[in-house]
């Protein structure tokens, strides 16, 4: 059974984000980029499923700029067998979840995996949409915010524990299915030197939007990106009357 994992190259989680002076976006020049933490978790889960003998191949795919290849290599160093890079040259107004979902659908139709695993969201845009959209486009069942995944090869189903507001929800999905991973699913492994070296010879196929017959449409235009307003200092009040006055006349909430 083949598992496909979609990964994204984003600004490293630990970096202090700065907005560009022209307010068109976040500063990415000279800033450390890494694999999205949720994508790391997705990859780790796929590799564990393979190591348990329930899958034969893990394919790591990424849609983005040329440097995505570095991120795919990290995925290969963790244990994926091969990679696919769909190159986006940076044109247009941006990719966005729907375009990525369309690309993933095309890749799934090309590779025919039984399981597509993604991170629940990317830490740069926090969209949390791609997994759900792909499932919709493919008409596959989806188990999002997974905190536990148990595959049943015999029955060709997968049990997914989902982290929802009220607690945990357990679903049983028929394969093929889409799973998006949440934080508590697993702890991704470190890339050891022998594996990093092995990864250098694993293939990364380059594919274009034309090859996949996907037309990238940018429907959303980012008008401005600003930092959130700085938190104002609190004020210590001397009496309840003063509080009521402020609530009434300044905050206008009563």
């Amino acid at each position, binding site marked *: 059974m083949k598992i496909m994992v979609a990964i994204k190259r984003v600004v490293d989680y*630990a970096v202090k984000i700065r907005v560009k002076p022209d307010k068109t976006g976040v500063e990415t020049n000279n*800033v450390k980029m890494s694999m999205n933490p949720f994508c790391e978790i997705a990859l780790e889960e796929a590799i564990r499923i393979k190591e348990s003998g329930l899958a034969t191949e893990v394919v790591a795919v990424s849609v983005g700029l040329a440097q995505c290849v570095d991120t795919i290599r*990290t995925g290969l160093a963790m244990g994926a067998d091969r990679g696919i890079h769909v190159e986006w040259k940076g044109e247009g107004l941006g990719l966005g979840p729907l375009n990525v979902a369309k690309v993933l659908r095309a890749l799934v139709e090309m590779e025919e995996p039984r399981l597509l695993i993604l991170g629940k969201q990317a830490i740069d845009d926090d969209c949390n949409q791609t997994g759900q959209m792909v499932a919709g486009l493919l008409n596959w069942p989806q188990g999002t915010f997974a905190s536990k995944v148990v595959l049943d090869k015999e029955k060709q189903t997968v049990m997914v524990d989902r982290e929802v507001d009220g607690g945990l929800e357990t679903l049983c999905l028929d394969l093929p299915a889409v799973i998006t991973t949440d934080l508590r699913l697993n702890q991704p492994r470190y890339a050891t*030197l022998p594996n990093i*070296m092995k990864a250098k010879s694993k293939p990364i196929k380059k594919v274009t939007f034309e090859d996949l017959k996907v037309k990238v449409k940018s429907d959303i235009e980012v008008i401005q990106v600003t930092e959130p307003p700085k938190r104002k200092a609190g004020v210590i009040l001397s009496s309840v009357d003063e509080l009521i006055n402020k609530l009434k006349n300044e905050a206008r909430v009563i």
Partner: protein
Amino acid sequence: VSGILVCEAGCVLENLESFLDNEGFVMPLDLGAKGSCQIGGNVSTNAGGLRLVRYGSLHGNVLGLEAVLADGTMLDMLGTLRKDNTGYDLKHLFIGSEGSLGIVTKVSILTPPKLSAVNVAILACDDYVSCQKLLLEAKRKLGEVLSAFEFLDSQSMDLVLNYLEGVRNPLPPSLHNFYALIETTGSDESYDKEKLQAFLLASMENGLISDAVIAQDINQASSFWRIREGVPEALMRAGAVYKYDLSLPLERMYDLVEQMRMRLGDSAKVVGYGHMGDGNLHLNISASQYDDAQRSNPLYMNGLRCTVEVSVRSMVLAS
């Protein structure tokens, strides 16, 4: 532009680091205690730290200081010029004098520019001789980008894994005899990464290391550093600790640990870790409780503390 920082002695190292971060510079020294130690104290004790192998000691980085003598006289040696050969360079007497000549009240320090590409790796070695050869190779092959070379023995790693939360074995499943933590800092990420990988591969092929992990993002790099910086904390949680911060010739450094282990047998755990890059060993002996009972009686040398101090003193004198 100059990167020269002038500040008062009470500034906490970590706060200075954050301030400089916004300006694009870093402090030339870094210690595990950065969250609480003050720069005046660092200067008075000539603190070394994790980056000495790259930026040198405070004698090289402190450009000037202001100190107050015991009779109240204030000595203004707070020069801020990078190169100043006028008169006698008195400030060096104060650096490392531990307050015996005067109290440092202000410091002017040269801060290196902040470089964006940092790579961290943890390596496993089978014996101390390999660690030494590895250090030499690191200085040769990584050269100008090497920014830290720390080492811990398997007992230190064991303590950290057992007593600290949120820490996991970087090279599971077992414990290796020795670990080295190497950090590179440079201006080109992919170039430095290639250099580090090539160096590690060569080291593995030459049998100097048996395994290695490279951090793939800042979080992993921080967790690697947490292991090394967390050893003192883990020791504290394990019980009573006798701490020795020694600078020894590199070849003899670990002999001390092994001899102490032999002398103390089962009565205490001896761990060694430290800034191998500059020959500085932290020898720590961990016992389950303090035993000063026989301290005042010179004839009765049974207490653990007495044994330790006598042994260390004689070994240090002999080396």
